[in-house]
């Protein structure tokens, strides 16, 4: 189980940085900082798939990067099965599997070497690593191209290898940042199957996406982030009910356009007292 509460993160703006009009009008830009995430909270239980939704620039990637310990939050709490990600990042990293749409592979290493490298960095012993890789490669159908260099693989093959890389160390939770962006239908299906498999194993999955069909197919829970704060958290049904919408598209738009009026179903309730 993973708990995220009152997460906030700001980035210092370089003085020379020229701002576009859209950036200037963003309310999150003040006192020389861009307050990318101001207040994000949610929970994800074992075996749950949580979909993180929000417009571009809402703070989804920043949130997921904090979740995966790449970025350090300014305030707030992240706990994975009781381990504080902020205070013990090295320990937490062993529990997290991370994959994003832009994740690459080392082109001059073979598919197997890519996965092996990360297994070794996670401190797995050779025997354990070898059997785990065989198991994953069997599952994902990587064996046939395991000895080919990553630079010569198709997008789908690369994505399969990236998935194997992300979970080689048996993570307790899996974080995916727009994992299907830029993928074709087959490669997208590989990712979806992978999420379903993780769910069946009881591994919580948190993923951000712009594809609402993926949300309705996979997600037990939806969290909507807008302008750095979580403004809805609940199941897909609850989202539809709450917004009185016919479909997810409408529901999503209605949540975004209604802000910042209180969203009663947000659990835990987001603070509304900032930047009033």
């Amino acid at each position, binding site marked *: 189980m993973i708990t995220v509460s009152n997460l906030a993160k700001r980035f210092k703006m370089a003085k020379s940085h020229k701002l576009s009009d859209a950036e200037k009008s963003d309310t999150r830009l003040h006192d020389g900082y861009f307050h990318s995430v101001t207040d994000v909270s949610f929970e994800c239980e074992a075996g749950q798939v949580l979909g993180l939704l929000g417009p571009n620039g809402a703070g989804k990637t920043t949130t997921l990067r904090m979740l995966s310990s790449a970025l350090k939050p300014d305030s707030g709490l992240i706990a994975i099965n009781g381990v504080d990600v902020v205070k013990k990042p090295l320990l937490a990293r062993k529990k*997290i599997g*991370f994959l*994003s749409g832009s*994740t690459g592979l080392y082109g001059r290493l073979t598919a197997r070497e890519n996965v092996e490298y990360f297994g070794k960095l996670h*401190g797995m012993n050779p025997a354990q690593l070898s059997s785990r890789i065989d198991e994953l490669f069997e599952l994902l159908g990587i064996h046939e191209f395991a000895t080919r260099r990553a630079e010569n693989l198709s997008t789908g093959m690369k994505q399969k290898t990236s998935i194997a890389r992300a979970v080689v160390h048996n993570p307790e939770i899996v974080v995916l940042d727009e994992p299907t962006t830029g993928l074709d239908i087959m490669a997208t299906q590989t990712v979806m199957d992978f999420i379903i498999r993780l769910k069946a194993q009881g591994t919580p999955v948190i993923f951000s996406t712009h594809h609402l069909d993926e949300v309705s197919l996979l997600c037990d829970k939806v969290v909507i982030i807008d302008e750095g704060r979580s403004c809805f958290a609940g199941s897909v049904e609850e989202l539809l009910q709450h917004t009185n919408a016919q479909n997810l598209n409408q529901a999503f738009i209605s949540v975004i356009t209604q802000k910042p009026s209180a969203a009663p179903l947000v659990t835990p309730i987001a603070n509304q007292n900032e930047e009033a």
Partner: protein
Amino acid sequence: MWQVYRKELLELVRDKKTLFFVIALPLVVFPILFGVMGFVMANAQISEEKKVHRYVIVGAEQVPTFAEQLFYHKSFKKVDLAATDIDTATKAIRNDLIDVALIIPSDHQQQMANNQQSQWQIVFNDAVLTNRIYGRIRDLVVNHSDQILTERLSNLGVPLAQHNALIKPVTLAKVDTADQRENLGEKLGGLIPYILIPLCLVGAVYPAIDLGAGEKERGTLETLLLTPIPRTYLVLGKFLTILTTALLSALLTVGSMGFWALFMGSIMDIKPVHEAVGVIGLLDLSLILLLLIPLACIFSSMLLAISIYARSFKEAQNYMAPINMVVFIPIVGALVPGMVLNWGTVFIPIMNVALAIKEIIKGTVDYSMVGIIFVTMTTIAVVIIAFSIHWFGKEEVLFR
């Protein structure tokens, strides 16, 4: 850390570009380049040596013996051309009819008879650096002039034995205390760091870009940061990889230069080369390498820090041009005549190593200076590595 090191090396070995810069450049490309350069230069010299100059003497009848000498000289060929003064001679040279014209004053014999000085004029194109026209004519004229001098002195009744004492009452003989090694070291010693130090840099540049900005561009950096390896180890692993290629590049250069020098020396039987390589002992070589290690450390850590900062390959490459300048200026500074290793220059990074290498090759190095350089350079290297590690921990650098 060693996992990172091993993997980075494996990846680099599989990369043709790295192999080219680190191995092919010093082992094959440079010797060929130097060989071709030497061959072309030697050829130019030989052809210049063999060249026959077409000439015209204005007023040859004034100096029949001299004209005859010139006529039978193997490097000169008389051309029948009615050149009478500087203007016509210049025109003839421009039109490529002759190479040189010698203008003897029409009253030359009169001047001789009156014991006066006679000025001859030589007309030729002096813009060509390698041409020997002036030197050859001058030798002939000096010779001719000496003959006249001898004649005049004899006419004045000076015995032949006293001629030298009269012409040059005082002469200066040179006794050189520098041995051959020191002489050679002064000439060659400046050149070797000029090749070695940039090669250290070249060996580090490509891997550094690949290991820092390359990870960002490929999208592998984020996943690497999410492994439970402290970032210090990630940086050190990468740093050691770059250091390896930098040193390898320099080592291969030294090795290949030594090999080719010995090889060419034995084939062409060039004695000075043989002797030069012979006198630079194993101790000197290891001293040079010892100095190159902290230098390579500085290059590697500096390049890595820049590469980590850059968003992409292209951006990293843009930063490399000023770095090259920063490295080259002190090396060129060390080449300036009169620059020596002293208490001031010993603390100027890069320049101190270049000067020390020169001194080592000359065989006149002060070993305490080498120690100071080693300590200075190592300190700088440690500071930059520490900075790289700090840099690698900063979110605004990693996620720009």
